[in-house]
């Protein structure tokens, strides 16, 4: 998903630019709990929109593994948010392009349902 952004703090080359967004590294000083990077493990995703990827998903949980997060220019591109010290976009969309920060293939029923949703409207 991070490659779909314009640019990332992780590298110098431009991203694909499919989502109007930039990618930043988590600032561990801002994390509320005494936790560290990478953000690895299960976390909640709060769907902003429930009509596409998250259709039928109530309080889904997903498996995450990342140290950088996407900051979208416009809220309309954010499908779900999660919190790891800061609130970040855990799923994004622009037109027919969808991205998830978490690993749906490693996230039990919540991942299976999300992939099924994607396959159905794709």
């Amino acid at each position, binding site marked *: 998903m991070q490659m779909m952004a314009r640019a990332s703090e992780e590298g110098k080359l431009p991203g694909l630019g499919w989502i109007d967004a930039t990618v930043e590294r988590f600032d561990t000083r801002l994390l509320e709990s005494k936790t560290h990077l*990478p953000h690895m493990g299960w976390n909640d995703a709060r769907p902003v929109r429930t009509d596409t990827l998250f259709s039928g998903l109530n309080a889904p949980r997903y498996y995450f593994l990342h140290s950088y997060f996407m900051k979208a220019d416009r809220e309309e591109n954010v499908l779900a948010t999660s919190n790891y010290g800061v609130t970040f976009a855990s799923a994004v969309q622009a037109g027919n392009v969808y991205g998830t920060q978490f690993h749906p*293939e*490693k996230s039990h029923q919540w991942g299976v349902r999300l992939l099924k949703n994607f396959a159905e409207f794709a």
Partner: protein
Amino acid sequence: LIPCLLVHNGGLVKTVNFDNPKYVGDPINAVRIYNEKEVDELVVLDIDATVKGAEPDYQLISHLASECRMPLCYGGGVRTVAQIEKIISLGVEKVAVSSAAVENPKLISDAATRVGRQSVVVVIDVRKTGLLSPSGSGNP
């Protein structure tokens, strides 16, 4: 909840004090059961590989990783960074090292540099008399 499965002769076993392995089922079938139970992670340890000096069973690992609907940690017969990279490339989240890490602690930092420290796990088997080393070096 993180179940830990032991692989011996291609099947899953339950042991008592690292001994008397008792067959309890097929690994892939167990993964499906734990998918149903929605466990947080799964740890699979091949208890033959190091003893036999064999390579990890990459075919089994790949099969396990593709069946797993949760993060997977594999251990057994892992001695080199190249093996760790290969296992991660098969879709495994974490690799556990045990006797190789005791013999060569640098393996831990070398592996962490290549695949990230989040993916390197060290398993330490302890008996009352000291460290248990399956490869026979060091005290039992």
